[in-house]
C-alpha cells in the first residue's frame, strides 16, 4: 500500500490491487468526474468490496424473514436485537474471519472474536457469551494440527481475557478446507431495552470522536483481501497482520458501557473492516448526514502513514462515536479513566458529504451516497454439474459389513464425531456465573444474572453441515436451521431467532451462486416455518484457492458452508434437560420417525468411500410437531434426557448419551426390530439427521404418567417407541453391536 498511486494507464494493476472490476473502476471515475486518486480509490475499493457492500448477496439476503414479535432490530445495524422480556434485550451476531485466520491463525481468530464482540458492545450490550464454528482441512493433513491449535489458542486468548465465556461451537474437519479454513465467531450480549445504541442518530453539530487504540498499518487491505481469492502469495514487505489486544478491548468495553450509561454518546460504530472509512461513511449515511473528518487528529502509531492508509487501516480496538459538543469533556473523562485515546476528529454536518482535512487544509470531499451506494449484482446462476450424479442411495447395492462393531467404532472415533473437549477446555466457559449447561452437550444454557429475569434463561447453538449442503444446497441450508432448533428443543428451549454466516467460494462462479441461492432458500423456508427470524448475519465469499500444479492451475473451492447461530428461550433453567443418560434402568425411546436413508452419511464415506448420494429432505411441518411434542414432554418433567440424531446417526446418539455423563459411565441394551420398518441394521444405526430424538425416562414412571406421555405424543401425532434400557458399561444393539462403554469412551475422548 506504500506506493499506491493509481496511474491512469495502470487500471489492470489497480484492479488486482484493489479488487475492483474494470466496470466498477469506470463507474467510480464517472461518479467522481475524474480518475480516482489513491485516496479515493482506497475508499471506494473498500466500500465496494464484497465484504462491505454485499454486492453479490444483497438481492437475496433481502428475501430472508427478518421480522417477528420478539425482534426489535433486524439486520442492518451492527447486530440484531431480540426482546427478552422484563426490560431486557439480547443482541447477537455471527461473523467470519476466514482469510485472516488462514494467513495468521492465532491473530486472525483472536481478532475475529474481538471484532464480533465490538459489534455487540457498540450496541450498548455487555457481551455475555461467545460461540464459534470452525472448519479445518482433513484431520490428517500436516498443517491441520497447527491451524487447530493456533485458532483455538487465539479464540481463547481473546475471549478469556475479555472475561466472556465461550460456551459452545463446532469443529469440523474436511479436505475441502485444506487451503481455506473457516473461523466464524458468534457473540451475544445483554442490554436494557432503552439502552440500545445505534449508528444512525447523528445530528448536525455533534462532534465526531475517535476512541481506543491508535492507528497503525494493521490489516491494510483486509476488506479488499477478503474479497479476493488467494491466488498469489503477495509479497508483503510490511506486516499488515492485525494484532489483537484483548486487554485494550476490555478497557474499551468498560469505557463505552460507562459512557453509554451516562448517556454521553449519540451514535456509535465500531471500526471493523475498512476501519475509519466504513465507520464514518456508514454512520453518516444511516443518519442522513455528512461529516468533517480531520485526519491530523487521528491518533497514530506510526508517522509513516498516508491519508489513504489511515482511512483503510484495520487496527483493532477502535470505535468512532458521535456525541453532543457539551458532553465531550465528560466523555473524555471516562476514557481517560480507562487510559484510552478519546479525540475529537470531526463534526457532523448537514450536507451529505465527508470533508477530509489533512495538514490543516481541506484535502478531499466525497459524497456519502456516492461511496456508500455500491454496486448490486444479480450474478448468473447455474445448477452445478456434479449435482446430476448425486442420486438417492440404494443401500441394496452395498453388502452388509461383517463386523458392524468396527464400523461403529470408526464412526465414534472419527474426528468430526469425537469429543471436542480438548478444544473447549481452553476456553473459559464458567466465568460470569451464568453457564448452566456448559459446552460438550447439545445447546449451551445460560441464565441471566442481575436483572429481574428470575429463573428464565436462554440457549445457544451453532450448526452447519457443508457436506449435506454440497449434496443438496436447499436441504443443507434448511438443515443448519433445523439442527440448531433440535439442539435447543432437546434442552427444553424454544427457538427464537437466528444469525447466519454464509461461507462460499467465488460468487462469480455461477455454480457457486446457485449453491448460495438454494442454500439461502433452505435457510429461509426453515426459518419461516420454525418462526426464527434472521436478525443479523454475514457473508464470506471467495473461500477458494487457486493452486498451481505444473502449468495447470486448479481452483480448490470449499463446500458451500452456511452456518447458523440460534438463540432460544427457556422459562426455567432448572428444568433444562441434558442429552446424557442419568441412571441405570431408565427406559430408552425413539421419539419421531426414521427414514433410514444413509445418503451422504459418514458411514457411507468411511465404509465405502462414497457419500455422493442424496440426503433426506426435511419435512418441516412434521419437524415442528416433533419439536413441540418433545418440548411439551420436557416441560412436564417426564424426560431425563433428550438427544437429537445428528452426524453418525442413532448409534452415536446412544453412545454419547452413555459416555458423556459427567460422573459415571453408562451404557445401553437396545432391541429394535428394524425389519418392521423395512430398514437394514446399518441404516437404523447410522442414518443421520433423522427427524427423531433419543429420549430416556424413569422406569418408575407411574401408570398415569405413562399414559400422559402417550397422550402428548398422540396429540402431536408423533410416534414413540421403546427401544431399550440404560445399562452400566455395555453397549448392545440387537445382536449386531456389542461394545464396552469404557473402550468407546476412551476412544471418543482421545482423538482430538
Amino acid at each position, binding site marked *: 500500500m506504500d506506493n499506491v498511486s493509481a496511474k491512469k494507464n495502470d487500471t489492470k494493476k489497480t484492479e488486482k490491487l484493489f479488487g475492483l472490476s474494470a466496470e466498477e473502476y469506470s463507474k467510480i471515475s464517472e461518479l467522481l468526474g475524474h480518475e480516482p486518486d489513491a485516496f479515493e480509490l482506497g475508499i471506494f475499493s473498500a466500500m465496494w468490496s464484497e465484504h462491505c457492500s454485499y454486492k453479490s448477496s444483497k438481492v437475496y439476503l433481502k428475501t430472508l424473514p427478518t421480522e417477528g414479535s420478539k425482534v426489535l432490530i433486524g439486520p442492518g445495524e451492527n447486530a440484531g436485537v431480540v426482546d427478552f422480556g422484563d426490560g431486557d434485550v439480547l443482541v447477537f451476531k455471527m461473523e467470519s474471519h476466514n482469510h485472516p485466520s488462514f494467513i495468521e491463525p492465532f491473530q486472525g481468530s483472536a481478532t475475529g472474536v474481538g471484532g464480533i464482540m465490538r459489534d455487540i458492545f457498540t450496541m450498548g450490550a455487555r457481551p455475555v457469551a461467545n460461540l464459534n464454528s470452525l472448519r479445518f482441512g482433513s484431520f490428517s493433513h500436516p498443517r491441520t494440527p497447527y491451524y487447530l491449535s493456533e485458532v483455538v489458542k487465539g479464540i481463547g486468548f481473546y475471549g478469556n481475557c475479555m472475561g466472556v465465556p465461550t460456551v459452545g461451537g463446532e469443529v469440523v474437519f474436511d479436505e475441502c478446507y485444506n487451503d481455506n479454513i473457516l473461523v466464524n465467531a458468534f457473540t451475544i450480549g445483554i442490554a436494557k431495552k432503552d439502552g440500545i445504541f445505534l449508528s444512525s442518530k447523528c445530528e448536525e453539530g455533534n462532534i465526531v470522536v475517535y476512541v481506543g487504540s491508535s492507528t497503525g498499518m494493521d490489516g491494510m487491505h483486509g476488506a479488499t483481501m477478503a474479497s479476493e481469492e488467494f491466488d498469489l502469495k503477495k509479497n508483503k514487505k510490511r*506486516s499488515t497482520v492485525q494484532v489483537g489486544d484483548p486487554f485494550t478491548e476490555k478497557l474499551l468495553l468498560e469505557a463505552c458501557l460507562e459512557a453509554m450509561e451516562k448517556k454521553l454518546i449519540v451514535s456509535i460504530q465500531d471500526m471493523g473492516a475498512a476501519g475509519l472509512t466504513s465507520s464514518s461513511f456508514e454512520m453518516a449515511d444511516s443518519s442522513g448526514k455528512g461529516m468533517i473528518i480531520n485526519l491530523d487528529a487521528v491518533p497514530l502509531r506510526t508517522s509513516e502513514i498516508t491519508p489513504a492508509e489511515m482511512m483503510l487501516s484495520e487496527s483493532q480496538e477502535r470505535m468512532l462515536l458521535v456525541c453532543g459538543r457539551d458532553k465531550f469533556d465528560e466523555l473524555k473523562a471516562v476514557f481517560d479513566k480507562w487510559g484510552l485515546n478519546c479525540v475529537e476528529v470531526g463534526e457532523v454536518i448537514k450536507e451529505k458529504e465527508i470533508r477530509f482535512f489533512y495538514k490543516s487544509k481541506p484535502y478531499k470531499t466525497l459524497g456519502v451516497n456516492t461511496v456508500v451506494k455500491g454496486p448490486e449484482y444479480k450474478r448468473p446462476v447455474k445448477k452445478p454439474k456434479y449435482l446430476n450424479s448425486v442420486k438417492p442411495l440404494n443401500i441394496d447395492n452395498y453388502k452388509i459389513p461383517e463386523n458392524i462393531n468396527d464400523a461403529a467404532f470408526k464412526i465414534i472415533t472419527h474426528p468430526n464425531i469425537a469429543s471436542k473437549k480438548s478444544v473447549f477446555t481452553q476456553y473459559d466457559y464458567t466465568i460470569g456465573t451464568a453457564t448452566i449447561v456448559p459446552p460438550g452437550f447439545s445447546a449451551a444454557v445460560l441464565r441471566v444474572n442481575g436483572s429481574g429475569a428470575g429463573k428464565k434463561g436462554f440457549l445457544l447453538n451453532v450448526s452447519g453441515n457443508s457436506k449435506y449442503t454440497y449434496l443438496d444446497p436447499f436441504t443443507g441450508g434448511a438443515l443448519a436451521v433445523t439442527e440448531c432448533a433440535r439442539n435447543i428443543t432437546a434442552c427444553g428451549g424454544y427457538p427464537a431467532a437466528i444469525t447466519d454466516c454464509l461461507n462460499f467460494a467465488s460468487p462469480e462462479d455461477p455454480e457457486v451462486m446457485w449453491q448460495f441461492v438454494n442454500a439461502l432458500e433452505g435457510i429461509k423456508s426453515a426459518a419461516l416455518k420454525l418462526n426464527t427470524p434472521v436478525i443479523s448475519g454475514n457473508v464470506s465469499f471467495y473461500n477458494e484457492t487457486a493452486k498451481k500444479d505444473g502449468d495447470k492451475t486448479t481452483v480448490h473451492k470449499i463446500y458451500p458452508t452456511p452456518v447458523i447461530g440460534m438463540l432460544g428461550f427457556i422459562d426455567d433453567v432448572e428444568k433444562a434437560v441434558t442429552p446424557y443418560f442419568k441412571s441405570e434402568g431408565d427406559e430408552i425411546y425413539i421419539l419421531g420417525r426414521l427414514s433410514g436413508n444413509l445418503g451422504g452419511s459418514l458411514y457411507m464415506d468411511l465404509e465405502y468411500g462414497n457419500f455422493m448420494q442424496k440426503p433426506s429432505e426435511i419435512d418441516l411441518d412434521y419437524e415442528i410437531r416433533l419439536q413441540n411434542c418433545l418440548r411439551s414432554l420436557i416441560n412436564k418433567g417426564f424426560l431425563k434426557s433428550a438427544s437429537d440424531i445428528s452426524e453418525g446417526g442413532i448409534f452415536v446418539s446412544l453412545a454419547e448419551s452413555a459416555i458423556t455423563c459427567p460422573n459415571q459411565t453408562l451404557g445401553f441394551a437396545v432391541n429394535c426390530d428394524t425389519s418392521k420398518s423395512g430398514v437394514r441394521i446399518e441404516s437404523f444405526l447410522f442414518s443421520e439427521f433423522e427427524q427423531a430424538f433419543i429420549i430416556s425416562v424413569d422406569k418408575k414412571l407411574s401408570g398415569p404418567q405413562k399414559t400422559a406421555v402417550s397422550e402428548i405424543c398422540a396429540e402431536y401425532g408423533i410416534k414413540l417407541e421403546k427401544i431399550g434400557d440404560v445399562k452400566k458399561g455395555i453397549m448392545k444393539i440387537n445382536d449386531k453391536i456389542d461394545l464396552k462403554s469404557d473402550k468407546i469412551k476412551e476412544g471418543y475422548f482421545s482423538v482430538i
Partner: protein
Amino acid sequence: MRNKILTVTTVNEEKMNKKAFIKIMLKDEVLDPQGKAVLSVLKSSGYDNVKDVRVGKYIEVDFAGEVKDGHASLKEEAEEISEKILSNPLIEEFTIEIK
C-alpha cells in the same frame, strides 16, 4: 523487512558446545500490546522518561556439538529453525548470535 545481520563470534573448536542465541522481536509496525501495557505501568510508576517499550523473546538453543546433516553451519541451521519454527515471519523478525 526481516533483519538477518548476525554478529558471529568465531570459535575454532568445532565440537565445542555451541549455542544459538535468538532474539525475536515484533516488526516495527506491528502492534505490541505487551510493550504498551508495560509502558503504561512504567509511566504510572513514575518512570516518565521512558518513551517506548517493546517486548520480544529471547531463545537459547543448545546444539551441544554437531551440525545437522545438510546444513553448512550451526548458524544456517539456527536460521532455518528461527524462520520455520521459532518466529512468525509475518509479524516478527529475528537476529541470531552463535556463541
